[in-house]
């Protein structure tokens, strides 16, 4: 902390890449399904599957702000945060705040459900089907397709809430959360120093994560 004016890194580049690629993939997945480009739907969906596996791995072995243990908190911490956010001036958390963590967990959970259901989904013509659908019968595959549709609706609601919350931070709490998700950095004076110190990406861990992420993507296509 010798140069206090310098920005600190709150999100490593893998987190930011994951975030913005996912933002791009969701409308693309919707569009390809809607237009019946199912080969591309499956390719993009499997890409997202790989990204999700990486994100879950990174949530355990990644940089401090990426780790679930650093931001998933119990109800009392969430309440305390909610109360503190009413105080002025509002001091933003370095990584996810305890309330925002709920949305992170919900969004990741819904995406995992969405992708998993898609792997087994069968369309009404019995023509288009996920790579694991041969493991289930037609009726079950149709059931997965319906869940696949339902989680997408939930996902849209969650995304709406997420975007509203980010807007709220911007308009009400005068905190720009988008810039750090793009540049990874936030002005040092608005960041607590402890967690912001070693947020870089460890190369060996990155390599292991990419290998782990690739595994299921290839396995489901066997």
């Amino acid at each position, binding site marked *: 902390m010798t140069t206090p004016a310098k920005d600190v890194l709150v999100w490593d580049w893998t987190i930011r890449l994951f975030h913005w690629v996912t933002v791009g993939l969701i409308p693309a997945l919707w569009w390809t399904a809607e237009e019946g480009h199912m080969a591309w739907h499956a390719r993009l969906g499997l890409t997202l599957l790989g990204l999700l596996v990486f994100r879950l791995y990174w949530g355990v072995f990644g940089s401090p702000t990426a780790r679930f243990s650093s931001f998933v908190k119990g109800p009392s911490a969430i309440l305390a945060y909610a109360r503190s956010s009413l105080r002025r001036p509002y001091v933003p958390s370095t990584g996810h705040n305890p309330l925002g963590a709920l949305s992170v967990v919900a969004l990741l959970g819904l995406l995992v459900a969405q992708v998993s259901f898609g792997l087994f989904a069968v369309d009404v013509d*019995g023509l288009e089907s996920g790579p694991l659908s041969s493991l289930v019968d037609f009726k079950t595959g149709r059931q997965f397709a319906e869940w696949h549709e339902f989680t997408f609706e939930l996902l849209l609601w969650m995304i709406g809430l997420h975007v509203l919350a980010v807007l709220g931070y911007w308009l009400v709490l005068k905190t720009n959360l988008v810039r750090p998700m793009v540049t990874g950095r936030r002005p040092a004076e608005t960041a607590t120093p402890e967690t912001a110190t070693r947020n870089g990406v460890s190369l060996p861990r990155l390599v292991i994560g990419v290998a782990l992420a690739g595994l299921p993507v290839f396995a489901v296509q066997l």
Partner: protein
Amino acid sequence: MKIQTLGLASLCVILASCGGADTESAEYRGDEELPNGMTISEMIETRQDGLEDVGGSFKTISDELKKGDPNVADIQTAAANVEAHSQEIGDWFPEGTGADSGVETEALDSIWEDPEGFEAAITKFETAAGELNTAAQSGDVEAIQAAFETAGGTCKNCHDSYRADDD
């Protein structure tokens, strides 16, 4: 501030478009008898079971074709089943078995408003299902693949115009 306004505006559009349209539910007439002796609800159930069975057979063929070494005997059984059902489908949609019967169905009123178009969709399907079965009995996997895709197109063709919820 301009970007913020834009953001808010697009969010409103997204939220507004989430509201689905309510479908008015018709009075239940599922117990009424049709000229063929079945009740409306029996007829709808029979056709949905039949279509589900067609879907199951289609999935069997699709699963086999995806394998490197498809089981031709399974494909033959399934294709014969599809062809048999394709000859019944014309009897599955008598007048009065639409959604206004109060029975849950995805059959659209356009079936009865445009009988020639519906009939044409059935004929296409019958032809393609016959060709699929012929290809299947020949055992030529490439021919089966081609006939399967054509037949699949005839399901989609009909669903796009005459079935609600094209998922």
